[in-house]
């Protein structure tokens, strides 16, 4: 059945799948947000332990989702993988360094003999939750603002700046998106902790932190939205594949794809409601509204970048080197095979959901920090 789908349909499906994985990653950055909150909402070692052990049970899911995002892009859009990772070398390398530090920090932070001391591992967590996300945001921003590269006839990338991707962080739009992600992650982190912890003094501070960080994210969100709807975009002529600049391209995309506009509005509403319900209505489950909202906003952004005859990884140095979901994709055979594999994803989601429910059925409390199993804690 899937084998009968044409190449364009498969490319659209895989952009959707990759976008969904990327958007789920954005939701799961509540772990990164929680890492940075260690330095603001935690007042003592007990608070720190509660935060680390709460988000520490989910850090691997975030990490794995990022790896899957990379794997899905590699399998479905290998030219993007080759061009972006090989060209924007430094931005990706710096992101990777921050994730290396994060991966060991939960496990090593409180263990005796850890060489660097707890503060250093907490520092690694902060860098990952701030600089790491900022750079990811900047890298995603280039989906709209473009990068400086040229592809030769063999599709080998030649980056046109000596900074190899770091220049992305100097573009106001990219920087704005990065900072929005940082504050969004902190908002999500605070909401998650409210829902996952049973320690009122700390969760009270988390409620306020969710609101404050949401307020901090607003200028960047509004700036990004304003930029997105007014900027020139990279349009693709469906007949010839030629790329050209189009004024208001992403606004046109939004108008041409009402579903995407609805996703964006619903997503933003979800985030706003999640924060308000926690801060002002004293509810605990705001993370689910804000999380779903984040996924929807992510899907809308990736849809604007990739669909409706748009170059999703544009080149400002040579427009015709720009990548679209059609010229960057894998073959029909590979996309078909991978689509069959993707049918297993609901099963994966189902067991993650089941285990999540089992593990979070009871909130984490200070009593557990010195119980029978305290020595296994982070």
């Amino acid at each position, binding site marked *: 059945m899937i084998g009968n789908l044409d190449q364009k349909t498969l490319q659209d499906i895989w952009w959707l799948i990759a976008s969904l994985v990327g958007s789920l990653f954005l939701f799961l950055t509540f772990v990164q947000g929680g890492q940075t909150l260690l330095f603001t909402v935690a007042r003592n070692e007990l608070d720190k332990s509660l935060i680390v*052990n709460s988000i520490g*049970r989910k850090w*691997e*899911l975030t990490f*794995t989702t*990022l*790896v*899957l995002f*990379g*794997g*899905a892009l*590699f*399998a*479905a859009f*290998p030219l993007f*993988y*080759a061009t*972006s*990772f*090989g*060209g924007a*070398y430094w931005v*990706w*390398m710096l992101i*990777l*360094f921050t*994730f*290396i530090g994060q991966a060991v920090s*939960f*496990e*090593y932070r409180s*263990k*005796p*003999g850890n*060489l660097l001391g707890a503060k250093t591992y907490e520092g690694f967590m902060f860098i990952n939750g701030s600089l790491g996300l900022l750079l990811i945001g900047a890298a995603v921003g280039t989906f709209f603002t473009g990068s400086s590269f040229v592809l030769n*006839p*063999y*599709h*080998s*990338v030649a*980056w046109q700046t000596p900074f*190899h991707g770091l220049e992305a962080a100097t573009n106001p739009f990219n920087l704005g998106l990065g900072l929005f992600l940082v504050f969004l992650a902190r908002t999500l982190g605070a909401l998650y902790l409210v829902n996952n912890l049973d320690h009122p003094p700390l969760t009270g501070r988390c409620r306020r932190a969710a609101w404050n960080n949401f307020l901090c994210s607003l200028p960047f969100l509004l700036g990004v939205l304003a930029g997105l709807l007014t900027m020139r975009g990279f349009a693709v002529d469906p007949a010839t594949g030629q790329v050209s600049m189009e004024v208001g391209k992403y606004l046109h995309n939004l108008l041409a794809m009402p579903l995407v506009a609805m996703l964006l509005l619903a997503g933003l509403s979800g985030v706003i409601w999640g924060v308000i319900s926690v801060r002002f209505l004293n509810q605990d489950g705001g993370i689910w509204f804000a999380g779903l909202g984040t996924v929807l906003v992510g899907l809308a952004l990736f849809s604007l970048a990739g669909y409706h005859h748009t170059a999703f990884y544009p080149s400002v140095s040579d427009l015709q080197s720009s990548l679209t979901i059609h010229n960057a994709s*894998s*073959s029909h055979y*590979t996309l078909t*095979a991978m689509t069959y*594999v*993707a049918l297993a994803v609901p099963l*994966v989601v189902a*067991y*993650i959901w089941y*285990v999540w429910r*089992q*593990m979070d*059925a*009871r909130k984490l409390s200070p009593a557990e920090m010195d*119980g*029978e199993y305290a*020595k*296994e804690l982070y």
Partner: protein
Amino acid sequence: MDLASTVQWARAQFALTAMYHWIFVPLTLGLSFLVAFFESIYLSTGNPEWKRLTKFWMTLFGVNFAIGVATGIIMEFEFGTNWSNYSWMVGDIFGAPLAVEGIFAFFLEATFFAVMFFGWERVGKGFHLFSTWMVAVGSNLSALWILIANGWMQFPTGMAFNPDLARFEMRDIWAVILSPVALDKFMHATSSSFVVGSLFVVGVSALFLLQGRHLTMAKRSMAVAAVFGLISSLFVGINGDESAYSVAQRQPMKLAAMEGLYDGAAPAPLVLGGIINPMKNPGDAGSDFLAVVKAPGLLSLLAERKLGAFVPGINDLAFGNPARQIVGAKERIASGRIAVRELASYKEAQARGDVQAAAQSLAGFKTHESDLGYGYLKNPLDAVPPVATTFYSFHLMVVLGTLFPLLFLLVLYHLYQGDIERCPWLNRASFLFLFLGYIASQAGWVLAEVGRQPWAIQNLLPVGVAATPIAAGNVKLTFFIFLTLFTALLIAEIGIMARQIKIGPED
């Protein structure tokens, strides 16, 4: 831009990250099953001593697992950052196993890892045990998919070259997944990792016995690990023979380097041990070894499954041997250069819309397509891997691999006799073997990867073409950042492990 220097630093960086990653992975693969065995015994006996024991080894597993994850993420993204041409040219095939690994293996590990460590009081005993098993299965499934990818690099199959896009494309996913090389590699890598995990448990338990601490726990751990290790190490031997046979059939240059065999022979002797002549180059007349012990005719039997069979040497494969109908790298380079030229002509003709010239060039390309990769080599010596490194890593691996089952047998014998705590020599040896297990495992990967140089994809894509065209200074700098970061984290890991072992199982 000095691309040659970039390639060398990219190779060094990949070797560095792979070797660091492989310090942690074998223990994860082996110890995950051992922890699952321990917990299964706890559940079936209800004896809390087994729970205590399970939690101790689980703590060490967790410390090791975290840094394995940290080093592992680099590997996936390095294909893009340092090997961008590779990512494009074979991403259509290579990307799929990596994505499947994420879907089927990583989420299994990530999801159940949290239950394994923090679920003792939150889920039932049965579900906790299930989670521990899922972590073990997930870890090993991860190995399966990455080794399918690696196996394809060593023996590319199930694909075709698309000249329009200048890339290789998948044509048969089952040929990729069920490649005999991939399955051999999976079985060899996982079973040898079970040996490393078993040696770790036996070694740490032996330390407890030497110190007179936690005697019951140590002997119980040893018994399970020694049985697992013995079975695994015997399997490694059998599978190792099959792997070497596979190398002989599909990567004859690697086999020749493994054996330091410059001139093919019939019958060919097996080198039991020796010192490679460091001054010798392919085509030179000097002797192959400074000192050597050989078993006459045995290589013919192992490599060809036939007494007296001819086994080609490095010179035969580099320069050709018409008498044995072997087309050497020299001839293939000439043919490959035509393929490269015709491909360029084809693309130029396409760009200017000259259909006739394009068809002519394409036909010319097709004639020489199978030698395309050789067209990028400068001379036949480029097709020869570093012989000494390949030879020594192979023999070191084999010698150590032969000793491991003997150690497990001795441990089991003295456990059965009930006098193991009175055998300090054996316990000291067991502790030493903990480290030898790592050395053997590393040697195996050095052999696998150095022995296939200069190919990123065997016979199709040399590393020089696969690398990202970026100034060498960038790669050099990230190399040293990785070196510093990983070394610091390794020291931290060893420090934590040592402290946890010193603390021992908690009451």
